[in-house]
């Protein structure tokens, strides 16, 4: 995280030196300082920072993709003349246990196809998820475990 701050500081320094605080110039400065940090990666332990930020970016990309997919699924479901829904609530055993990660996982589950998180059990091990199509619960559980939970663990551990 301190490397991120250094990166940000260098970006601001770049904007100050080049005397234009526009958005595009700040982004350019950020990329430039990331490259500069990459050049001295041996000294500052940059390798972990790079892979971690790559994982956060890939989590965000997966999230946007799943959000658009889920909106499309809702569209086809709602506009089909004969709606085939079999809703239900299933329990999902979580591997993540920190508060922030649980919040992130619950939010991501809510915005992904056909699932909506309803509640967390008191011992914070189980997430209760409402699914609009409960015909294959094990497949849904496996999707969450292989998709989001694994990405979250990769990005924040």
């Amino acid at each position, binding site marked *: 995280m301190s490397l991120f701050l250094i990166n940000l500081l260098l970006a601001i320094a770049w904007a100050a030196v080049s005397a234009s605080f526009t*958005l595009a110039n700040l982004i350019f400065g950020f990329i430039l300082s990331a490259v500069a940090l990459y050049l001295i990666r041996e000294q500052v332990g940059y390798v972990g920072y790079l892979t971690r930020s790559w994982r956060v970016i890939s989590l965000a990309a997966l999230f946007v993709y799943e*959000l658009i997919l889920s909106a499309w699924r809702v569209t086809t479901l709602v506009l089909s003349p004969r709606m085939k829904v*079999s*809703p239900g609530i299933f329990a999902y055993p979580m591997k993540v246990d920190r508060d922030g990660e649980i919040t992130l996982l619950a939010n991501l589950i809510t915005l992904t196809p056909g699932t909506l998180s309803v509640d967390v059990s008191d011992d914070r091990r189980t997430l*209760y998820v409402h699914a609009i199509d409960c015909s294959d619960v094990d497949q849904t559980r496996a999707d969450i475990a292989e998709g989001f939970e694994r990405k979250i663990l990769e990005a924040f551990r």
Partner: protein
Amino acid sequence: MILEAQNYISGFLIVIGAAFALVAAIGVIRLPDIYSRMHAASKAGTVGSGAMLIALAVVSDDPATTLRALAAVAFVMLTAPVSAHLLAKAAYAVGYKLWSKSVLDEMPKNQSTGRKQSP
């Protein structure tokens, strides 16, 4: 040339977003119970208004406006699941039942949800 592309992209995004908003509204009408309706409202509605805000970001010439529009998109995407989650939790805790044709309910009956205030 760039302005033309801006116009086409934003027009396209506006229509897509409005169509998703309409889908969310129709879903809220057609789906059988409150929990299924939340799916339509939280997903299609978020994508709909998000697409229209991105269209505003694309069409504006001012970087500050673009940044604010993108911040608004992030804000909508952060708050929509939280409010849907809270509403589902409150409805379930109070005892609004699932649709009678629901296939599964693995939630324990005595699951305590939040603090129950005395009326």
